[in-house]
């Protein structure tokens, strides 16, 4: 059988080559003539240069915006920090921007943003990772695609909708569960944030887990490991840099979120506590910008600068993680 199929291929490849078609082809090229071909090629080369230029300009636009925003934030954020004093600004625990004797300490906001983000990550990462493992390694393709589209939808819901649902469902639930006078507090914000970062964590970790070569898992199973042992001792460690970037991405999303947390956190400039109404870095800017003026307005720009620095650090961390993965 093998013999006959081999000759089949030989025959068909021979019959596919029509006699004389080769010389006809060179005929076409000869008709065009070498000078005409060169002219065309020159035109093409010129077009190539123009396209390269367009690509370059588009690439530069991204850099230009980053530089512009950085310059804007630094120039508008630094003066207030100078006037207030950097330690008083960063480590002052009282924010009373409209008082007769205004105080501009943003430590409550910084700590709230840090605690809120940490809390959301602590809840979202284990759930998200396990969900990603389920999607990548356990679920049948039909169930996986169902869950995957649900995750995509979750990622696409506008944050104001998360805020609304949080206000109507989570805030009253927290109030009753812990017998509080008001359920709009850090805990509610953490819960809403954790749902919001979940899709990021899931999809990035899933991609990382899917990229783990099947050979690793087969080797583990062939040594007598169970499926669970294989996933946690081989697949997850092999995907660890991807999972780390999922976490960093989640942190970035959580720390930058404003609308949803403003709606469920109570928005009061307290030092953070799980059951206290709190204000985040983002919400501090959003809630006062409309009526601010003078030093207060400048201080809001300084908060934006602090937030920007946070996000920068996270992005650099992300790049570092990716670089390490490539090495």
């Amino acid at each position: 059988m093998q013999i006959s199929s081999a000759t089949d291929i030989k025959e068909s490849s021979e019959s596919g080559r029509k006699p004389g078609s080769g010389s006809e082809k060179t005929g076409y090229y000869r008709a065009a003539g070498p000078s005409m071909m060169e002219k065309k090629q020159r035109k093409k080369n010129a077009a190539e240069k123009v396209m390269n230029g367009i690509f370059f300009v588009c690439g530069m636009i991204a850099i230009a915006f980053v530089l512009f925003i950085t310059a804007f934030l630094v120039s508008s954020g630094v003066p207030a920090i100078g006037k207030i004093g950097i330690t008083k600004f960063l480590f002052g625990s009282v924010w009373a921007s409209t008082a007769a004797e205004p105080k501009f300490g943003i430590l409550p906001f910084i700590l709230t943003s840090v605690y809120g983000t940490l809390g959301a990550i602590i809840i979202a990462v284990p759930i998200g990772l396990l969900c990603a493992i389920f999607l990548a390694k356990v679920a049948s393709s039909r169930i996986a695609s169902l869950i995957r589209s649900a995750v995509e939808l979750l990622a696409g819901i506008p944050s104001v909708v998360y805020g609304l649902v949080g206000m109507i469902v989570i805030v009253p639930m927290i109030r009753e569960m812990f017998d509080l006078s008001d359920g709009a507090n850090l805990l509610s914000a953490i819960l809403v944030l954790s749902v919001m970062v979940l899709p990021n964590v899931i999809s990035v970790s899933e991609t990382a887990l899917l990229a783990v070569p099947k050979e690793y898992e087969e080797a583990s199973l062939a040594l007598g490991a169970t499926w669970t042992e294989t996933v946690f001792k081989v697949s997850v460690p092999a995907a660890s840099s991807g999972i780390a970037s999922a976490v960093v991405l989640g942190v970035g999303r959580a720390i930058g979120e404003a609308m949803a947390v403003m709606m469920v956190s109570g928005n009061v400039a307290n030092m953070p506590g799980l059951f206290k109404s709190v204000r985040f870095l983002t919400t501090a800017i959003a809630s006062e910008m409309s009526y601010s003026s003078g030093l207060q307005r400048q201080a809001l720009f300084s908060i934006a600068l602090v937030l920007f620095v946070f996000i920068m650090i996270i992005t650099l961390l992300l790049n570092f993680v990716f670089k390490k993965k490539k090495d």
Partner: protein
Amino acid sequence: MANIMEAHNLNLWYGEHQALKNINLDIQEHKITALIGPSGCGKSTFMKTLNRMNDLVDGCRIEGDVFLNGTDIYKDMDVNILRKRVGMVFQKANPFPMSIYDNIAYGPRLHGIHNKAALDEIVERSLKQAAIWDETKDRLKKNALGMSGGQQQRLCIARAIAVEPEVLLMDESTSALDPISTGKIEELCLELKKKYTIVMITHNMQQANRISDITAFFLLGELIEVGETQNIFLNPKNKKTEEYITGRFG
């Protein structure tokens, strides 16, 4: 000579396609059994029934029995225990992306050995048995992926024998290696068969002839002929076997 594994009336389907047709084959203890045959003939599939790696394939259905030392591995044995007792080395070297030490210690740790001294000893012994100790003893904590292809494959052999299997399955384990590495692994196999039983798949007729004791020829899911390697290569009984080993098809 005693049979360590036996396959009785083994039939296997991938969905509608029957990949193995009524295979009866005994694996003798402390021998190297070579499975030969053209690609797609079922030898790989047969090998994977011996440690139940076919369980991972969707739509795979098996009829018949496989025994390991008299125990039916599909009915009366836990699959994880089976795979500890029947180890496997794959076609492509697949060390875990961890240190050399952790690669070898992975199996023993799975099976409950956590004592540092015991692990050290197992790692050293396995690497020595796989003839790779001298090349690795100074870099046990280095990532295994930094080794050459031939070293990685011998590391995989060391990893497989670290759990002290009874049978070692080698699926074309030298096909991606240069002649020198291949030679080293062949020598290793001859050494290892004193302690273990080896079943190997090879497309290299010289290799089968050089190192195996028993040769089994598969074609289109059927076991055409099995016997002592010398007999198979000198006087094959079946015409198809003769055509295959003399290189007239396949």
